[in-house]
């Protein structure tokens, strides 16, 4: 499988990362190396193998429905790059050109 620069562009968009042309170039080369190394995985016969997505360190972990401490709005917003009257403030979504 060959990763093209277009694939990198598409994935970068999905991941919401702006890449420079140089980065796109670099990543498509490097990820080709990495993925062709990883293609070795296909050698394994995994028919009937249950995928391991976690280490089953626990199960059925549940919390009682009892209210606990929330943060004050000052603390919740303390790290915000911009805020306004108790809200996080962000630029508007510009639909047309975005």
């Amino acid at each position: 499988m060959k990763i093209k620069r277009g694939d990198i562009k598409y994935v970068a968009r999905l991941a919401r990362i702006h890449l420079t042309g140089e980065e796109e170039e670099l990543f498509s080369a490097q990820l080709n190396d990495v993925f062709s190394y990883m293609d070795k995985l296909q050698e394994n016969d995994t028919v009937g193998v249950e995928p391991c997505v976690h280490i089953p360190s626990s199960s059925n972990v549940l919390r009682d429905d009892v209210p606990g401490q929330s943060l004050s709005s000052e603390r919740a917003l303390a790290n915000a790059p911009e805020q306004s009257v108790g809200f996080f403030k962000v630029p508007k979504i510009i639909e047309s050109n975005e």
Partner: protein
Amino acid sequence: MNNICGLSAYQLKELIGKNNIKAVDIASSIVRRHDEVDGRISGFVNFDKDAVIDRALCLDNLADMHDRGLALFKVPVVLKDNICVNGELTTCASGILQGFRPPYDATVAARLKSAGALLLGKSNMDEFAFGSSCETSYYGPTKNPYDLQRIPGGSSGGSAALVASDQTMLALGSDTGGSIRQPAALCGVVGLKPTYGRVSRYGLIAFGSSLDQPGPITKDVRDCAILLNVIAGHDKLDSTSADVPVPDYVQSLSGGVKGMRIGLPKEYFTQGLDSGIKVKIDAAISVYKSLGAIFKQISLPHTEYAVSVYYIIGCSEASSNLARFDGMQYGYRYQSPDGRCGLIEMCMRTRGKALGLEAKRRIILGTYSLSSGYYDAYYLKACKVRALIKSDFDKAFNECDMILTPTTPTPAFKIGEKIKDPLSMYLSDIFTIPSNLAGIPAISLPCGYSENGLPIGMQLMAGHFEEEKLLRAAYSYEQNASWNKVKPVL
């Protein structure tokens, strides 16, 4: 008083017990040591001397009310920069988290505080723990105390270098694919990755959530047990935390290895293993034999796939875990020169600009592995092979009590040597990755030095929740080999 810094946590505790040394004196020694050596090592990020002294003064005030029964009373501890401390800068050594002060404590941080530890500050790391060399840090690389031209390992390189250079007694790291053990090995200290679920991940900024574990980096095995005693145990705030009783790990140190069956997986003793490392591992095996351990050849047949499985799963999880860094609620936000850019543009530029190259590479890799059309071939396939790797270990532990391997295929490499070649960097984690995939505990401890004086580490792995066994075996070896007494010349 300067010799305080050379002590282990255990020795310091004894000294405090005898002479009732003030925390502020300990803090002053640490600050002096920091001023003396950290300019060359760069192990700390955001080291705030005044804050350290203030915290020490607080502990001294507490001393009147509190008994010295607290497990780590006045003992200096460093936290890796991906562990949240309420109100303290916590940046994962990333540009995107500049200025971020979490409004809460990680469970491990809270436990250290309640144990009376003297928190020194944050240690350097690879950005978001993405790396094996500390070179991807926003703050620049940390240097190996044994050779300032070389990397300290990563991603918990700052913690390992600070312990090795006597700038702290204890440190916490986090280990996703070897990030505690590999730097511990390369810096000549002890590092333990606990069983997945043994130590709470709450407040540890996630890389690969199904792989991450916080754990101790210490000067010797006894300190490792002391620190694990404080941080291990069930946490209601972490759904993956195991509700399994915690033994007293210090108590479990003695007992020796007589009759213990130790497996040597043949897959770890072939691929490109440095001959100097081979010699030291063989010597360690001889020590164990002399102590009554029994060695066995075993096989972990899927080892060669571990790196691929790890990078696919780790990067997939990371791509999702790091999606929250978007400039909305905290951290860096891109400002367009004309001040008029839309939200999506702001988000893309923020991430493009403030995430480092390796972070972007891994997010792209992970996003790709999960994206429509590739999920089955990459993410799902990797999870299936992960199951095979896990069952390799289950089978192996039917035949032996423990597995012994080198921690790394080579000693510390030079700064800049591998940074341009991600694949070769990824392959340097080959011996440490499998235990994360299987969720089993593993420890790295010094087992000698290379011809040019670089530390070499040996790794022991055991079954789930068998940290006691690992610590006992490591302690037995350390008592007989005493590599922990060697210090770098700085």
